[in-house]
């Protein structure tokens, strides 16, 4: 961002600013003429869509914070006041509430696209890892945001999730007391959660900036997984991808708006419209849908791990579940070193492709398991057994299958370059 060569702008005001602070030159370089692979498909929309959702959440969130009161006696009523009395408050809240879900939809697709096309591989490892940091921050932000309305699910979700930290040996209980600021989830917990819920989105914004910066150093990956070699392989970002992103964004917003206006509570849980009551637990505590696969992994570990034939327990069932849940995401940090196969795109990997798609099915199935009560059954067998099996495949995929494939999978022949592959396809289509 130094004072490298600059083409003067015709507009004198723009030129006056740009010669002192070259923001226009930067925008022109990074978003105007930025060379972008010419073969993106619509899966490459979701980075821009996620960015749009982050801005939507911050803007609606700031306005909602002006009407919200963080106090156990007042929170629930202040949210109901937003719904009934504040001008257009219902709209702001429904945009924000469903926005969390749609932010996660965009980000899950974005992450899966990265796995499928090998976007995490050299030289984009750090770009990928920053993305995992963003995902973890999003999970934390969404969780504490769900606590703020102080309904039954807010309270009991907060209780169950903060209790997870008590599984940490020795210091667990002190950590939980520190998180709560008391001896149960209560007013001190709510006020600090509100402060953090306001802070974390800006932290996310900062990490997104680094994520995009890293992206503009390496350039984007593409469906073929080949690096662009010549000018024939790329297009300027504007107008080609500003247009493609805008189109995808509009389609996404239409679906988002359908939820906001026609089924605003479809993704939520009705119990959260009951004020929090520390004396009564809802019969079935479920987290928001975007946590369900991880919640299923938490519950899949129902056995202690110890030294066989003795009573010595090394990892209790509770700690084991917590390790499985956090480990399932932390694994993504080392994904670039678990999958070291030289071919990026799944299109040219006959074994990786079906096994990764199976992982997607496995992940969605885990979501189903997480949504059911712990004693549910499937085909006459306890559902928890299927949950354990699905958790097993998830970990086996990353820890066994990927390293094995990296050494042994024979890939298909790669095209010589992006433009040759694109032109050959166009010729075939005639």
């Amino acid at each position: 961002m130094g004072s490298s060569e600059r083409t003067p702008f015709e507009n004198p005001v723009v030129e006056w600013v740009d010669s002192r602070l070259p923001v226009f030159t930067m925008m022109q370089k990074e978003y105007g003429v930025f060379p972008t692979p010419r073969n993106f498909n619509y899966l490459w929309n979701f980075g821009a869509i996620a960015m749009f959702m982050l801005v939507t959440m911050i803007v609606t969130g700031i306005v909602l914070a002006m009407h919200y009161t963080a106090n156990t006696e007042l929170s629930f009523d202040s949210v109901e006041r937003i719904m009934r009395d504040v001008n257009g408050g219902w709209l702001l809240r429904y945009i924000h509430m469903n926005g969390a879900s749609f932010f996660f939809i965009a980000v899950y697709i974005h992450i899966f696209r990265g796995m499928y096309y090998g976007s995490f591989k050299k030289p984009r490892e750090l770009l990928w890892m920053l993305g995992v940091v963003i995902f973890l921050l999003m999970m934390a932000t969404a969780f504490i945001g769900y606590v703020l309305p102080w309904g039954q699910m807010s309270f009991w979700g907060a209780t169950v999730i903060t209790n997870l930290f008590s599984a940490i040996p020795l210091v667990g209980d002190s950590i939980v007391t520190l998180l709560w600021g008391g001896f149960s989830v209560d007013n001190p917990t709510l006020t600090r959660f509100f402060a953090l819920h306001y802070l974390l989105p800006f932290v996310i914004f900062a990490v997104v900036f680094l994520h995009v910066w890293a992206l503009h150093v390496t350039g984007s990956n593409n469906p073929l997984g080949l690096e662009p070699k010549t000018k024939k392989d790329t297009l300027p970002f504007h107008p080609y991808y500003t247009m493609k992103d805008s189109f995808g964004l509009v389609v996404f917003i239409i679906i988002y708006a359908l939820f906001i206006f026609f089924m605003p509570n479809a993704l939520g849980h009705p119990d959260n419209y009951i004020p929090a009551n520390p004396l009564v637990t809802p019969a079935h505590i479920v987290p928001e849908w975007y946590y369900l696969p991880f919640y299923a992994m938490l519950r899949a570990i129902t056995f202690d791990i110890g030294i066989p034939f003795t009573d010595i327990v090394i990892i209790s069932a509770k700690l084991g579940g917590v390790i499985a849940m956090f480990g399932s995401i932390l694994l993504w940090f080392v994904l670039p070193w678990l999958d070291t196969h030289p071919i990026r795109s799944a299109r040219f990997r006959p074994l990786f492709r079906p096994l990764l798609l199976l992982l997607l099915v496995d992940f969605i199935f885990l979501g189903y398991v997480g949504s059911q009560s712990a004693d549910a059954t499937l085909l006459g067998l306890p559902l928890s057994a299927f949950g354990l099996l699905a958790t097993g495949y998830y970990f086996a995929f990353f820890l066994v299958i990927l390293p094995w494939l990296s050494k042994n999978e024979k890939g298909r022949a790669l095209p010589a370059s992006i433009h040759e592959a694109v032109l050959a396809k166009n010729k075939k289509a005639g």
Partner: protein
Amino acid sequence: MTADSEDRRDFLQLTGAAFGAVGVACVAAPMINSLNPAKDTLALASTEVDISTIPEGEAKTVMWRGKPVFIRHRMKEQIESARDVDMNDLADKETDEDRVEKPEWLVTIGICTHLGCVPVGQKSSDVHGDYGGWFCPCHGSHYDTSGRIRKGPAPKNLAVPPYEFISDTVIKIG
């Protein structure tokens, strides 16, 4: 630069960085400590309960540290069934004698040791589970008349809070 002055430079940089790290920790400590339970929260850490209003066979739920505490006035049969148990049948081995101050009064924290739900069984019309004590509707844990886990996913017995009898009719929890 001589090798000697390079060593000096390294030493100064390392001590500078170390002092900086200690300084950051010193600044962070009071802020993190402020998140621990405040004095007014700690002041609520004990509560006195009049138990003379609980008839035999009935129970009462009181709040202590934001958590429900179950106080049960046990009947003779309930005490007997709690004491007449083979230790090998218990997942978390504790005798009933170790869990009560006076046999007719059972005081436990009313939070399931599995994932923190509140078990049912306080009212006589409630479900009491297979062992006549409490039943947790979340994931199906059964507790006996001593609040011990007998069946289901919970790992431990219902916790007994610290409490003492101030008089025959008043207990102080905490």
